C-alpha cells in the first residue's frame, strides 16, 4: 500500500501539522514534538492506517471483506479478528441504543436519497426495504457471519471514529513519548498535551454555517471529541426537514433530531457512538445526553 503525498505538512507554533484526504473527509494530524522527521513519520503512519481501514471496510469496493459479507448470498463468511471485533461492537451498540443503532440499516438508502430535494419515498417502498433490515436477523457466531440474501452490513457509522482511535494508537506505539491530535473530518482524539503542557484548542463547527463559522472552542489535553449531525444531508418538503438519520425500526427519518450533537469522551469511538445514539433519540436527545452524564454540545 503506497502512501500518497500529504496535502500539506508544516510547523505551526510548537507542533507539526500534516493534512491529507481519507474517508471522504479532510484529515489532519497534529504532532507535539520538535523533530520534523519523526512528526512526518507519525503523520504517514496515521494516513496509512486511515487508508487501510477505508479500503478494508468501504462499501464501494469489490475486493474487501465487506463485499464478501454482503455478496455471500446467504452463505457463511468467516471473518478476521478485526472485523469480528467491530461486529461484536456493533452488536453491543445495538443493545445499548435500545435497537436504534443498527448496522444492517444501510439498505434503506435504496428508498431514500438525501440530496436536498423533495423526493420522499412512499410507505410501500420503505416497507419492502425494511424487511431486509434488522440485526436480530443476522446470524453472528464469531468468527462466522451469515447474512440473509439481500441484507447488508454497513460499518460507515463506526469506521471513521474507529480509524481515528486506531491511528492515534499506532502513532503512540511508534513514539510513546510524543503526544498527537488526530482529526478525521471533525472526529478527533488527543493523546496528551502539547509541549510545555499546553492544551490543544479545538473550534466547534456551527452547523448552520458549516465550514464557515464556529460556535465556540474547547481546550483539550487528553480526550476525544466527535460530532454527529445532519448538516450536509437532508431532504426538505413542505417546510419539513427530513434528517438522514433513519430509524431502523420504522424505516423513516428520526423525528425532531437535533441539527448536531458533539460529545467529549476518552476515545473517539465512544464519543462518536454517544453522539449518534443521541441523534437517534430524536426529540429526546437532550434528555438522553443529560442522563448519560457526559460533556456534550447540542444544536437544535
Amino acid at each position, binding site marked *: 500500500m503506497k502512501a500518497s503525498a500529504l496535502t500539506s505538512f508544516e510547523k505551526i507554533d510548537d507542533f507539526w501539522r500534516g493534512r491529507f484526504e481519507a474517508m471522504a473527509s479532510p484529515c489532519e494530524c497534529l504532532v507535539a514534538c520538535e523533530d520534523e522527521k519523526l512528526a512526518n513519520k507519525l503523520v504517514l503512519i496515521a494516513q496509512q492506517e486511515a487508508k487501510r481501514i477505508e479500503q478494508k471496510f468501504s462499501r464501494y469496493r469489490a475486493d474487501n471483506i465487506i463485499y464478501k459479507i454482503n455478496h455471500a448470498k446467504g452463505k457463511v463468511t468467516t471473518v478476521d479478528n478485526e472485523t469480528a471485533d467491530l461486529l461484536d461492537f456493533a452488536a453491543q451498540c445495538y443493545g445499548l441504543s435500545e435497537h436504534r443503532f443498527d448496522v444492517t440499516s444501510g439498505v434503506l438508502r435504496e428508498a431514500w436519497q438525501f440530496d436536498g430535494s423533495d423526493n420522499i419515498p412512499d410507505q410501500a417502498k420503505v416497507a419492502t426495504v425494511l424487511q431486509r433490515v434488522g440485526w436480530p436477523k443476522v446470524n453472528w457466531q464469531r468468527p462466522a457471519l451469515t447474512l440473509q440474501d439481500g441484507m447488508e452490513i454497513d460499518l460507515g457509522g463506526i469506521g471513521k471514529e474507529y480509524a481515528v482511535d486506531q491511528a492515534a494508537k499506532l502513532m*503512540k*506505539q511508534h513514539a*510513546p*513519548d510524543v503526544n498527537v491530535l488526530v482529526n478525521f473530518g471533525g472526529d478527533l482524539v488527543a493523546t496528551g498535551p502539547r509541549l510545555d503542557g499546553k492544551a490543544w484548542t479545538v473550534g466547534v463547527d456551527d452547523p448552520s454555517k458549516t465550514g464557515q463559522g464556529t460556535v465556540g472552542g474547547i481546550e483539550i489535553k487528553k480526550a476525544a471529541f466527535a460530532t454527529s449531525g445532519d448538516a450536509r444531508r437532508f431532504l426538505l418538503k413542505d417546510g419539513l426537514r427530513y434528517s438522514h438519520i433513519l430509524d431502523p425500526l420504522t424505516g423513516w427519518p428520526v423525528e425532531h433530531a437535533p441539527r448536531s450533537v458533539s460529545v467529549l469522551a*476518552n*476515545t473517539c469511538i465512544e464519543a462518536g457512538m454517544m453522539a449518534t445514539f443521541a441523534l437517534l433519540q430524536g426529540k429526546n436527545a437532550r434528555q438522553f445526553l443529560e442522563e448519560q452524564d457526559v460533556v456534550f454540545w447540542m444544536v437544535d
Partner: protein
Amino acid sequence: MKRIITIHGVVLGLLLLSGCSTMKDFSNTVKDSLFTYEKVKPWQKGELAKEDMQLVDDGMMTYADDHIYFSKEAATGGKGVGGGGCGCN
C-alpha cells in the same frame, strides 16, 4: 562485621530523600508503588509502555554492572540466565 558509616551512607540518605521533599512524599511513594493494586486496562498502560519503565531500561549499563560485580564479588545472577561468562572470577 565491620560497619562503618562512610560518606556513602550520607549520600544514600540524600538520594532516598532527593525524590521526596517531605516525609509525606516518601510515604506516598511507598503507598503508590507497593500498596496500590489495580487491574490495569490496556488503554491505561501508557506510562508502563515507556522505555524508562522497563525493569532493565538500559541493557548496556546492566551488562557492564553485571560483569564488574561478577568479577569482584561472590554472589552472582538473579536477573536472568545465560549471557556469557568471563574469566574474571
